């Protein structure tokens, strides 16, 4: 491997042979010409890539179907403190029909965000996820990089498109929870019906 050289220049000639091999190889093999000519060609999008957060909404109406309940956990856990949330005064029904708070203001300053993904990890409601869109450049340095609630909201279909495996797993889990909730609600409804059926009977007997 480390053979000795006799003549001055022998190692140099070996190096030149290596370069020549790369030169001619670049015309024939893909391995020796690794350039991807952006923007005409793109690399395959890697599924788990993360750029900046976005808010997920179910259904068609972004305000109605937004999963975020303004619990402000992501705001507290965000290391560079780039999330700013203002809780609403009233409540709106969520996917299970239960009335929840919602964020009146939800701003993320993506010039501060460092894409660490901690907000996604701590969110108990699967409401905030990481986007893969990187062409976010703008000429307005402050306002253009402060994304508000509307710009951050993207549908669940979009989430399924960019992160299929993750979205499938989240959907399955949420559907399971919803099924459990419905089963519990049905059991509770049957229990109240049963007690209601018993009550008048006992009342009438007096």
């Amino acid at each position, binding site marked *: *491997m*480390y*053979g*000795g*050289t006799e003549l*001055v*220049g*022998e*190692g*140099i000639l*070996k*190096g030149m042979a*290596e*370069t020549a091999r*790369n030169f001619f190889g670049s015309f024939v093999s893909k391995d020796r010409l*690794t350039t991807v000519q952006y923007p005409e060609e793109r690399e395959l999008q*890697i*599924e*788990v*890539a*993360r750029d900046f957060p976005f808010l997920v909404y179910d259904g068609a109406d972004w305000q109605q179907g937004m999963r975020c309940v303004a619990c402000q*956990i992501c705001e507290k*856990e*965000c*290391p560079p403190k780039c999330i700013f949330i203002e809780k609403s005064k009233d409540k709106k029904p969520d996917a299970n029909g239960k009335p929840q708070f919602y964020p009146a203001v939800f701003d993320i300053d993506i010039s501060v965000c*460092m*894409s*660490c*993904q*901690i907000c996604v*990890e*701590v969110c108990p409601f699967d409401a905030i996820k*990481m986007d893969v869109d990187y062409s976010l450049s703008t000429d307005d340095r402050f306002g253009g990089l402060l994304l508000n609630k509307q710009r951050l909201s993207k549908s669940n279909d979009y989430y399924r498109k960019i992160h299929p*495996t993750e979205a499938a797993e989240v959907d399955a889990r949420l559907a399971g929870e919803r099924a459990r909730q419905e089963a519990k609600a049905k059991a509770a409804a049957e229990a109240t019906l049963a007690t209601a059926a018993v009550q008048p009977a006992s009342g009438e007997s007096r």
Partner: protein
Amino acid sequence: MNIATVPPAPLDSEPVTEPSKEQLLEISMGPQHPSTHGVFRMKVVLDGERVVRLKPVFGYLHRNHEKIAESVTYLGSMPYTDRLDYMCSITNNWGYALAVEKLAGIEVPERAEYLRVICGELTRLQNHACLIGFLMQDMGSTGTPLMYAFREREKILDLFESLTGARMMCNYMRFGGCRVDLPAGWLDRAKKVIADFPRFLDEYERLLVSNEILMDRTQEVGVLSRELAVSAGISGPMARASGVDYDIRKVDHYSIYDRFTFRVPLGSHGDVYDRFMVRLLEMRESVGILQQATRAIPAGPIVDPKMKIRGFRPKPGEAYGRIESPKGELGFYLISDGSPNPYRYRVRPPSLINLTVLEDLCLGRNVADIVAILGSVDIVLGEVDR
């Protein structure tokens, strides 16, 4: 030229030349320079072409990392450690996770340890590839070895992206394990990349190792003696090239490195050539470790089930966790007072400690050698300045 006979350099605001001596030339290889690996300044006093005194000036990239850590939680500090030595984010995460696990007594499951070793050694591979590429670039090979090295590095970065979501700022470790498990097919792709890597190393060696110009420029240049290396606290490949047999993977037996057979290359001359070759040989050893680890990785949980993400409050105490990062001994010292944020958080940056001997290495050499020597010390300004 002995450092002891030259008077100490004055404060930053004063010029370094003494008008009484002969015509000495003071140049500032300033913060903006094609080969200082970041914003790093050297005030060099030259006599003709020889270096008479050299004073490194850094701090241009200071970002208050240690102070910020006191106002975020332990977990919140983890993404900031990515940005310390931004070439090797995963090993930075690992050092920090190790320190916190020592502090709070958390155990790590076996699969997580294997994942950590695999990702750590991949980081070592891509860091050393980057370094030898840049060393050649600084010595004037207009980019050819650099491009070859980066071609390989890109494959490893693609692996990181498909595992952690980001190429460089991986944020992969958590206290008690790793954040996310391997996706389907990752292990096969990683095995393929690892199997192709020795071919690149052979190509590199053919291009460079017996190249007379390279040998001329790097042998007997920037010699670091064994005594100076030990007394200055040099660690990592730089110390091993001077003959100091100290590899924290072998000394501390942290994680599961005991299960893998690998050798530690040692140099004998301590010059730039030795540092270059030690890193090349270390890459081969890392490939060996990776092959063993990817074969033996078991199934299981990837994080300690008792760990919760929020509300982590370790008991009051202190801990120092260190790992063998690609640049040297990376250590994290934590003092906890029971609150969710650390009381004191200190990073032992290997690049900074290795940089303290720069003047001794460069005295009496030419200007052209300064760049080669600086390249072989392997600094990343994010770590030097934090």
